[in-house]
């Protein structure tokens, strides 16, 4: 059976970032996950905090930290370090980040033609957050690619109040070579095509010829290559002579996939191990100490023994927490106490309004250990990170990535310090 200093459970942004940082600091790490998840659903940027009215991510963090139950209330002092650690890790890669805690939050266009606040974006999306300064926005769609409708987006954006926005908004669709002969077209298959230099050269020529004269900033579906993304983005900008940014549309998320690939490679490069596809089915404990977990296997189970365990299984969306009829909530690995709204008050009457159930999660102490209703830790060597934490509404507060990275960093740092002391 594999043995490790630390077993991380979950392969979303929090689990991956924590596992990588622990491995970088010399710990032996085994990451076990039931499946791949959040990175492949989201836009690949880093949402640190943007509750309504925030000027910057730092301002947003301060606003959220003032809320007693919010995860930032006990983590806000670590956000800067965590973000910088993440930025340093990705520096030089195709998913390197632009922007930081103090970058003003600006509205950037979404593929449905709404605006969302953003400050920290991967290089391929960064041009959407630069001051428009007289530039127009040209959305370029790809004919037959049904997951991004640029005319719809442009029409909605034109009807949206956008302070200091683009001078004008237009949309064009282009035919890319050979797509009419294909049976299947999704973001991933297009991105794979862009990785191929010969096809890419022809596609870039087709896109460049569709750009009318004028000062433009160009938004395209997020399909500009997987492994070769940096080159695709650069070559496209060079050919067009304008700045280009990607807009993530329906899943699968290509930018999120690139982030997953980058972090996974970093984990392997530092000697970490990863197994995806098997749920935790059993936990061994001695008092308040977890000694091993068992993951499902084709027969029997795989026993993973470790000194420390990191729970990064996500909330309801990630299935770290299951919600059942009768208002029952269950944390699926350790059976930890779940903090959620009172019975019967899970949902708002208006489906488009925030729902109380969104804040569901595990309450933790200052060391991120899970606690009971009295505030006493229920497990000593387990730390909870990411969207399994109680008290946030990451859709509305746009804090999911920041909480994931900060809690991951805190857990990794505290374990590294304890290992160094031991």
């Amino acid at each position, binding site marked *: *059976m594999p043995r490790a200093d630390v077993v991380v459970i979950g392969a979303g942004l929090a689990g991956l970032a924590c596992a990588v940082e622990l491995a970088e600091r010399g710990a032996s790490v085994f990451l076990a996950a039931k499946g791949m998840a959040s990175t*492949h659903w989201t836009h690949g940027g880093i949402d640190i905090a943007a509750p309504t009215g925030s000027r910057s991510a730092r301002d947003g963090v301060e606003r959220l930290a003032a809320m007693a139950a919010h995860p930032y209330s006990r983590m806000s002092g670590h956000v800067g370090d965590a973000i910088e650690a993440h930025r340093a890790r990705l520096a030089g890669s195709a998913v390197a980040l632009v922007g930081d805690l103090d970058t003003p939050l600006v509205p950037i266009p979404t593929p449905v033609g709404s605006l969302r606040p953003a400050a920290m974006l991967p290089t391929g999306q960064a041009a959407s957050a630069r001051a428009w300064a007289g530039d127009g926005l040209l959305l370029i769609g790809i004919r037959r690619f049904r997951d991004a409708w640029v005319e719809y987006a442009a029409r909605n954006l034109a009807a949206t109040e956008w302070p200091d926005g683009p001078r004008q908004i237009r949309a064009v669709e282009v035919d890319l070579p050979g797509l009419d002969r294909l049976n*299947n077209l999704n973001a*991933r298959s297009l991105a794979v095509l862009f990785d191929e230099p010969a096809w890419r050269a022809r596609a870039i020529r087709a896109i460049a010829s569709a750009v009318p004269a004028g000062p433009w900033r160009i938004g395209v579906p997020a399909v500009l290559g997987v492994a070769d993304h940096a080159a695709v983005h650069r070559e496209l900008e060079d050919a067009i002579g304008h700045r280009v940014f990607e807009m993530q549309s329906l*899943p699968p998320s290509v930018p999120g996939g690139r982030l997953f690939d980058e972090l996974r490679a970093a984990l392997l490069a530092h000697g970490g191990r990863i197994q995806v596809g098997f749920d935790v089915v059993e936990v061994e404990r001695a008092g308040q100490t977890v000694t091993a977990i068992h993951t499902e296997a*084709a027969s029997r189970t*795989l026993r993973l023994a470790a000194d420390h365990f990191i729970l990064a299984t996500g909330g309801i969306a990630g299935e770290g927490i299951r919600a059942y009829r009768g208002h029952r909530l269950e944390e699926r690995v350790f059976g930890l106490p779940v903090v959620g709204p009172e019975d019967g008050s899970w949902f708002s009457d208006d489906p488009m309004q925030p729902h109380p159930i969104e804040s569901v999660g595990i309450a933790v102490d200052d060391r991120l250990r899970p606690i009971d209703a009295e505030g006493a830790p229920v497990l000593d060597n387990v730390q909870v990170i990411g969207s399994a934490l109680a008290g946030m509404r990451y859709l509305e507060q746009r804090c999911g990535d920041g909480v994931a990275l900060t809690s991951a960093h805190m857990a990794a740092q505290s374990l590294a310090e304890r290992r160094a002391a031991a």
Partner: protein
Amino acid sequence: MTFHDAAARDFPPFSTDACIKCNVCTTVCPVSRVSDDFPGPKYVGPQAQRFRGPGHGSGAPDHSVDLCSGCGICTRACPAGVLIAETNNRARAAIVEERGSSIRNRLISDTDLLIRLGVPVSFLANIGLKNRLARWFGEKTLGIHRRGPLAPFARRTFSARWKRRRGLTSLADAPDPARTVVYFHGCAVNGFEPELGRDAVAILERNGFTVIVPRQECCGLPFISNGLYDQARTKARRNLESLAGFARAGYRIVGTSTSCTHALKAEYREMLDLADDDATAVADATWDICELLVDLHDRGELDTGFAPIPEPIPYHPPCQLKSHGIGLPAMELFGLVPGLRATDSDHDCCGAAGTYGLKAERWQIAQDVGAPLFAKVRAAKQAGASRAACDSETCRWQIEQSSGVPTVHPITILAESYRRADADSGGSWRRVV
């Protein structure tokens, strides 16, 4: 594979209701990465599943599910626990049941028959396998690609060698279950790579095990992969009949092919609906050989007198191994051999997928799927590696043929290390088979 709830365990298609349409499976599918004809796991799996079953007439909305290679990567990536690959395989079986199968598919699935025909005339058969004209003819008449990875037949089967050695085939003197294992050699060892079986037995005996090789047939996996469930069930039932008694008596069943052992552990139940006590007992008793050796090492019982093998070696963990859910035991064992510098290929699939890469109409897909792996293996050779390692036979043959780099089972490396240790100490390692 993963059983997230009881209903899915009993009938994988039930698990498709859990699909949240997130498309993670689409991003990891090696076949849809290279072939536009395959819409990807989500479409042929959970989406198409709504149009299958009673009341829908046909066994499947279209043929595209037949392009699934069955690697199982989608099932492992799925965050919702949908048994996608298993559902696809059942859909293929329904198509086969309705529309029949080709002679080619029935022939290449019947490895026991091929071995019975090929081994006695191995000299001639192997000339034929290497002969371009014969292979061209085989492609034109049967649809077996002329460059499909086929291993040469052995001169004598492993089971014949075992008989000649008068090895144990039954529990005549009831040895201790803790120190006795049943070896499931599979077709690859029996008809093509008997040296691997010899090394496996030698390693097990060196570590204090008595080895029994009872009557056995092909595990049936090639039939399962080709949707020929009736034939697969016949094989499975005969194997269960032969193995269940050992399993119930507490003996472990050890295999050197992660494909066969996965069939015993999972596919008999997940695909063939063989969920009786015999199947469960055999599944619970079955071990991959590297898994067993790591377990032995955990207990401090593995002979770790490995002599140094100072070389780099690229290791490709096959898809079937990953579906075991046992981590990468070969990598842990490689770590015990001084000087051996094993690196995980970190590539999803070699493309072969059992018989998939042999088929004329699938060969190019299989090559494209494995191309990055072949490049990595060739690069490793440039950097000083003399061979690659992989736990499943058809993957080994595919990697060897397509990269030009000899590819061996991890057990071969470990046996060599033991042999060197014996040579260093002046002793010689008993030839056991």
